[in-house]
């Protein structure tokens, strides 16, 4: 993968709060086209929430999510906070200022608030209308493409045009992001046949031709290592690994650019795990998929990902290419995480000592607040100034 590949997904200062619970707190990363980005961390650290926020299962609290350069998610909380803080700041300033200063400051404040409120408006609009914008763009393209052809007035062209237009009208940006869920039993509707499950997305997108749908379903089934005959069966007739394959087929039939795989193999037997991992890695190479791979099994993540982000209690604490991360783990939490990986080597295992991570003892953030800083090319660590120096020295 080259470094100058196009950025497919950019997450900026993503925050997702559930009441007082900061599930995701100020997380930023980019995913390049064609790469596999792994997200690891213990349960409850916010990795699944991050994935779900990206696919817009939640409305985010603050931050921006850009997919193919279009803002698909935007939060307003940060602007609200900015307004409140500005109000407080100016109140003090105004109290101690001379009369003519006062009016100037008041105007300044008004301007500032108006600008932020404009941002909020925009964010609300984008959050709601990103799909509409996208489909408008597509309709425009279709119209331009068919304008010269329609002039000839051929019936079949007209039908094609109508079809294309309908699809463009229903097109949603979000369908280009698909998700594979952890539990292959719970994520498939038991009352739908495999054909219905896999074709559902296509139908919603506006595909009406039965033949095309069936053909595509069969193609996908064969792609994921099942056979045509499976299409008319129900999910309960399949084993766990086969069900997960159905989940994969359902995701890739939409021709997505990005797949969010949320613990796709943790509910499976080891031997089946290998089958599904092999399948995903084949698909990735054949279809050029970009994958956000969320998992807690570090061996699998290491095997599968190009870059890895480590999350701890809603924060991204370290981000690096997977070889670099495993070779030079910097953040104490990452070290503790890596020291917990079990290896198939009894003699080594009996001597292995787990490093315990105690955030209070490790960091002193009472004065200097930490942020995500680049410590080596492509290697980011959450740290403050003092730690930055310390970590830098460690790398040498």
């Amino acid at each position: 993968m080259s470094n100058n590949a196009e950025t497919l997904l950019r997450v900026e200062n993503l925050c997702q709060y559930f009441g007082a619970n900061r599930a995701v707190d100020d997380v930023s990363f980019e995913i390049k086209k064609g790469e596999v980005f792994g997200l690891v961390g213990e349960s409850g650290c916010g990795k699944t929430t991050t994935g779900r926020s990206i696919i817009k299962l939640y409305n985010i609290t603050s931050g921006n999510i850009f997919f193919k350069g279009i803002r698909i998610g935007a939060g307003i909380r940060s602007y609200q906070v900015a307004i409140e803080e500005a109000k407080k700041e100016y109140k003090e300033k105004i109290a101690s200022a001379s009369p003519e200063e006062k009016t100037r400051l008041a105007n300044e404040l008004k301007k500032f608030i108006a600008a932020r409120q404009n941002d909020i408006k925009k964010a609300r609009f984008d959050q709601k209308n990103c799909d509409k914008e996208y489909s408008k763009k597509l309709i425009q393209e279709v119209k331009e493409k068919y304008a010269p052809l329609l002039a000839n007035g051929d019936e079949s062209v007209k039908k094609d045009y109508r079809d294309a237009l309908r699809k463009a009208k229903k097109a949603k940006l979000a369908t280009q992001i698909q998700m594979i869920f952890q539990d292959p039993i719970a994520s498939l509707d038991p009352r739908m046949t495999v054909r219905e499950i896999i074709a559902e997305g296509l139908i919603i997108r506006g595909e009406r031709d039965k033949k095309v749908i069936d053909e595509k379903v069969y193609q996908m089934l064969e792609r994921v290592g099942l056979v045509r005959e499976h299409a008319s069966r129900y999910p309960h007739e399949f084993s766990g690994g086969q069900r997960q394959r159905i989940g994969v087929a359902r995701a890739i039939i939409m021709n997505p650019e990005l797949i969010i795989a949320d613990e796709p193999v943790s509910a499976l037997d080891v031997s089946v795990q290998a089958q599904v991992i092999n399948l995903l890695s084949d698909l990735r190479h054949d279809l050029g998929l970009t994958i956000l791979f969320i998992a807690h099994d570090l061996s699998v993540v290491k095997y599968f990902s190009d870059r890895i982000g480590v999350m701890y209690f809603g924060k991204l604490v370290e981000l690096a290419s997977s070889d670099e991360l495993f070779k030079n783990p910097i953040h104490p939490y990452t070290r503790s995480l890596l020291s917990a990986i079990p290896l198939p080597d009894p003699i080594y295992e009996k001597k292995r000592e787990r490093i315990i991570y105690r955030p209070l003892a490790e960091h002193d953030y009472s004065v200097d607040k930490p942020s995500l800083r680049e410590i080596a090319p492509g290697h980011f660590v959450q740290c403050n100034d003092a730690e930055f120096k310390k970590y830098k020295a460690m790398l040498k």
Partner: protein
Amino acid sequence: MENKLHVKNLTISFRTSNGKVQAVRGIDFDLAKGETLAIVGESGSGKSVTSKAILGILAGNSIVEGGEIIYDGKDLLKIPEEDFHKIRGDKIAMIFQDPMSSLNPIIKIGKQLTEAMLLKGKARQKESRETFDKYLKALNNRMIDALAKDDPEKAKALTKKCKDFDTFEKKHIELESAYNRAHQAASDALPEIDTILFEIEKKAFTDPVERIKQVKKLALASINEWMVTGAAAGEVRTATETIVADTKIAKKEGDWTAVYENLKILRRVLAEALSFVQPNFFSMGYYLTFSGEKEIPKLESVEELNAFLRKYLDDNFMLSFIADAKSAIAYSAEASYKEMLEAVICLKKYRPVFEAEKLDKKTSMEAYQILAKEIMETVDCLNIVKDSMVYTFGSGLRSEIETYFHAIKKNVDEVARYNKQKAEYDRIVAKGKDPGGEVVPAAVTDLELVRDNILNQIDRMIAHFGKLVDNKETRDFEAETVALIDFLKENASGIVNKITKSMAKAKAIKLMKEVGINNPRKRYNQYPFEFSGGMRQRIVIAIALAADPDILICDEPTTALDVTIQSQILELINKLKRERQLSIIFITHDLGVVANMADRIAVMYAGKIVEYGTSEDIFYHSAHPYTWALLSSMPDLDTNEKLDAIPGTPPNMIYPPIGDAFAPRNKYAMQIDFERQPPMFKITDSHYAATWLLHPDAPKIDPPKIITDRIARMKERRAEQ
């Protein structure tokens, strides 16, 4: 090493609407004390069924077709449900795979944790009392038989000796458990104080009032005559008082220096107290009971005191008691051997009854009764290790005899049914109609086989007694005496130790902390739905450990957890195993987890054990293609090549394959693998595998490259360290 559990030729099937599923097909293994045996295999290989059989919780449609599971002299497959109540959860506990379904959703976590502890506390007290009395009485009787047959004076003296033992033993336990409680409180208080000190330093002290209260409680509980006493006790009292008072002020004003200093004082006193030598409470109990003194003499140091008490005890009582007990045990053993020889004669005498062409019901049952009685008489009442063969002989023989006579009747019925249905079937076919099915063939029990089983059992018993009598000389009565006295002490402590509600709560909260649940006091009063999956699993583990079991069965305990927690839980299980000499059966599909845990590993496939060995054997010298496949299908941190996934799915166990069950998925399969089942080939003394590849005539095949590479890499890494 002492074996805790034998599983012999266990065979289990399930009735389903499609036919009989053969889940477990004749597996054998032993579990030694303090050992971890890992059972590894894919889902459907029968590993969970095996564990459920050990716990006696098989589903209603299961059929135990044969075999035995012997624990503590009992065959768990044959004992009634009533007896199982005493074993399940108490002696053999289980951590279930699915934490969602193994907790009661409408009962608070705290109650679920303490329930078993409280129930068990009561039951144990009663049970300990019974065992203690039974063994002490037996010992007394045997002492009299051995040493004072015609001497009533001496017999009286011996009886008094046993009674004395009883009296001061309990005194000793009282003293000791008071000391232990104090010791425990102090050692609990220290880390808590450390955390608070640390948090004050970092200015992140949360929930101060509640936690300081807890420290005060623990610190005051640690005051004991032999730990924190005199001046130190005064210091602890004043320090805690000031800390509590200061905390209230500090909470308002935010200045924690005073609390900090006082906590440091408290910490110093407690740490000092914990470093003291423990006095010998056993001899102390004796001294207080018999010397007539009310107080223990004040001596320079605890070491001196111990020496003094020890000497007093030996001079006055213990040495002679041990000597007497030893002769009683020797006498009892000798008597038991005599009984055994008689039993062998009796067995030989009644064997012909069962050799007959057709057994007679009346004579057979009479013979069984005589034999069962005779065999039970060989039991040595002073031997604390129960001989499982002797205890199960009677019930086993009886069930075989019953099977025989039941089968005679059933066979006739079955043949009649078959003939009738067959005639009906033929009639329909003759009419040219479709009968819509087949006639189920007559299930006729082979009487010969049952009779052979009976004879086998008798022969085995004769051989067993022969072996015991032959090994007579090797017994070490010295060690057995010590073991018996320890056993009595253990039961005495069971009588004295009561478990109250608050104790159970304290223990539960400690356990919750141990398994890594933050803020256990608050969590204690919550319902299961308020916990996440990982947290629930920890609760399940805590419940299993609360009962202090002998054998712990872990059925995929960490599959749902992430690495850090997984590693914590595994460490916890390992620690408990070391501390409590726990025997563990660890069931998983993930070989990676096992490397850290297992002493021995059994790899299961399609209801059979296909490979069996120490964890080094399995990871470094695995021999079965299925083990290879498992090992090569999981990535490790250095894997870059494509994974070797196992093709296909496990076989349908309604129609198990004739040959090696793994053959259809095995790329090394030979013709014979499809035709005949491979026997267990011995590789080394500890390592066995069932694959035809090990047959001398088979071609030599190396394990897949991905495994050999990994082993080489692991070797390098170890060399580097």
